């Protein structure tokens, strides 16, 4: 088990201004696959480097299985690491690259080569053992890097954007394979990525980072359906969540979100504390939680179709307020069968209990905690 407690990392010894990681707490269970996801500069790579021991935290504690490892050298941490650039040793053959960590442990050459061969079989690169890294394709180099990281049977596997140099198609294959190997070996794995699709697909839990702090740490479906704040909600999802500026009001005993273009009545089971009334909020709803409805439906909103994009699996429809009062465009997803063209007037409605309300006075905290 890995525990990070109040980790702070400052570069150049500058106070506050240079905090790459700012009070980070994280727990990772044995055998778990965890992704650190966030925009560039969010501190995810710095966190990984501290786990590897290549950087020392300014303050805070890193524990492996309950033991403090802050000052343990990388070589003594029993970790395997795959770098974004693969970082293969160019002067060594693939066999020697994979056997390198074993040879550094004073394992006899014969045995090290034997184990390198076994590992290479798992990654299906045993036919490349005599080549030099420069003679391999990008995908093959990536496999060699994986094999090198795994050959020493590490307790923890660290992956730093391991797939960002692969083409889209190969990425999918490699992704599945990494997941399969990780399951089979049961090695605790931490992946750093900026690709949300990759993070959500591959990991048991995802930690979303921004500004050196964890925004939310949860399984993928929970992050997607129950974002704790505006950052998580807007960062995840493609096409992104619709966010409309509004205000919470009490009207005739009902709680209502009032926006420039529409009023949305909160259902009875989603009533909020009275203290929230009058607050400025962002009303958020994902494109696939909006449906086109009939002109008689309850809580319908009249909109004008601005643009229809064909995504292959469906259509992405962008609608605007026909009166021009709402300056936000709303995106919604429909099936291919929907006959809709730009210029049409349509009625839309929000699927029940799929909306979110983010408190703009409280760093965009989600006021609704669905459970």
């Amino acid at each position, binding site marked *: 088990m890995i525990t990070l407690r109040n980790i702070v990392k400052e570069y150049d010894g500058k106070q506050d201004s240079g905090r790459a990681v700012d009070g980070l707490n994280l727990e990772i269970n044995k055998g778990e696959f965890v992704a650190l996801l966030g925009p560039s500069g969010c501190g995810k790579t710095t966190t990984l480097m501290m786990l590897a021991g290549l950087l020392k935290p300014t303050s805070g504690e890193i524990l492996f299985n309950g033991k403090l490892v802050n000052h343990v050298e990388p*070589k003594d941490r029993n*970790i395997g*690491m795959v770098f974004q650039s693969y970082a293969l*040793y160019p002067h060594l053959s693939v066999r020697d690259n994979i056997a390198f960590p074993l040879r550094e442990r004073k394992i006899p050459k014969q045995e090290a080569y034997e184990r390198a061969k076994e590992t290479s079989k798992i990654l299906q690169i045993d036919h490349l053992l005599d080549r030099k*890294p420069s003679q391999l394709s990008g995908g093959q180099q990536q496999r060699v890097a994986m094999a090198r990281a795994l050959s020493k049977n590490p307790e923890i596997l660290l992956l730093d954007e391991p797939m960002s140099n692969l083409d889209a198609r190969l990425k999918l294959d490699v992704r599945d394979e990494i997941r399969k190997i990780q399951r089979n070996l049961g090695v605790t794995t931490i992946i750093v990525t900026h690709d949300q699709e990759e993070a959500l697909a591959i990991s048991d839990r995802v930690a979303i980072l921004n500004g050196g702090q964890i925004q939310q740490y949860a399984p993928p479906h929970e992050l997607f359906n129950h974002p704790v704040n505006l950052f998580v909600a807007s960062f995840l999802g493609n096409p992104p969540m619709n966010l409309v500026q509004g205000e919470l009001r009490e009207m005739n005993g009902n709680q209502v979100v009032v926006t420039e273009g529409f009023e949305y009545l909160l259902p009875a089971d989603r009533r909020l504390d009275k203290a929230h009334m009058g607050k400025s909020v962002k009303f958020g709803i994902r494109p696939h939680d909006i449906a086109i409805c009939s002109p008689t439906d309850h809580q319908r909103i009249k909109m004008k179709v601005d643009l229809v994009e064909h995504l292959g699996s469906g259509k992405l429809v962008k609608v605007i307020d026909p009166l021009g009062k709402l300056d936000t465009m709303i995106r919604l997803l429909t099936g291919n069968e929907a006959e809709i063209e730009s210029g049409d007037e349509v009625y839309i409605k929000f699927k029940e209990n799929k909306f979110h309300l983010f408190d703009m006075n409280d760093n965009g905290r989600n006021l609704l905690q669905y459970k």
Partner: protein
Amino acid sequence: MSTSTLKKLLVHTYMTLFTLPIIAMIIWYFLAATMNFTTGQFSIDNFSFFTEPVEYAGVKLPLIWPIVLNTLVYSFLIVLIEVCISVPTAYAFSRLDFKGRVSAMKFLFLMRSFPGITLIIATFFILVQMNLVNTYTGVLLVAVTGSLPGRVYIMKGFFDEVPWDIEWAAMVDGCTRYRAFKKVLVPFVLPGIGAISVFSFLGAYGEWFLFKLLIFNDDMLTLAGYLSKLVTKEDQIMNYGLITAIGLFYTLPIILFYIFTQKIFMKVNLGGAKQV
């Protein structure tokens, strides 16, 4: 005639015209060494320096073979010292964060651009004080001091090119910092080490000024100094045949060395790390 062949013809004519004087000089060089100009006959008389000490017009120099040995020992010693000092120094400048790194780098750059010859009188007096005049230690000290800043600067460039990932990978794979340097970084910068070795060797092989200044015994000279002794006598009687013959003998190893090292440089491959 098409325009491309015309273009080619022009380029070739142009290049030939400009290379001709150089080729002519080289031919003259060979002829001067191997011909007796008064008789116009081919002769190897000029190469008698292989077997007996050189002596003409008041110039008396020892037999060449001990001088050759001096040259080789001196040159390889210089290469060894410069590589052993400049490689770790350059690593430190490139990779370590220590106090005064930037100012030391600036000083290094200043030393590199500074014409060392202007310091030579002071250097001489210091060596006299240290009792190092007319010793190889003195020459080595001055030579190495003069050339190290440049070597370190070049080597630093090579270390800067090595991605941090490679070094980190080695450290994760069980290396200490020093072992990562030895096992992974040094092989990575091998072309650089090759380059500075060549520069060092050529510099040392061609060094005559320090020998002229600091060495008074003719039998302690190296080939370059030996050659310079032939041309700097007051009476100005030059034995061109002898000078070119010894010059030819002096140049030959360099040509061989060049062909040999060029092959090494061609073999060097730098792969396995994208985003180098």
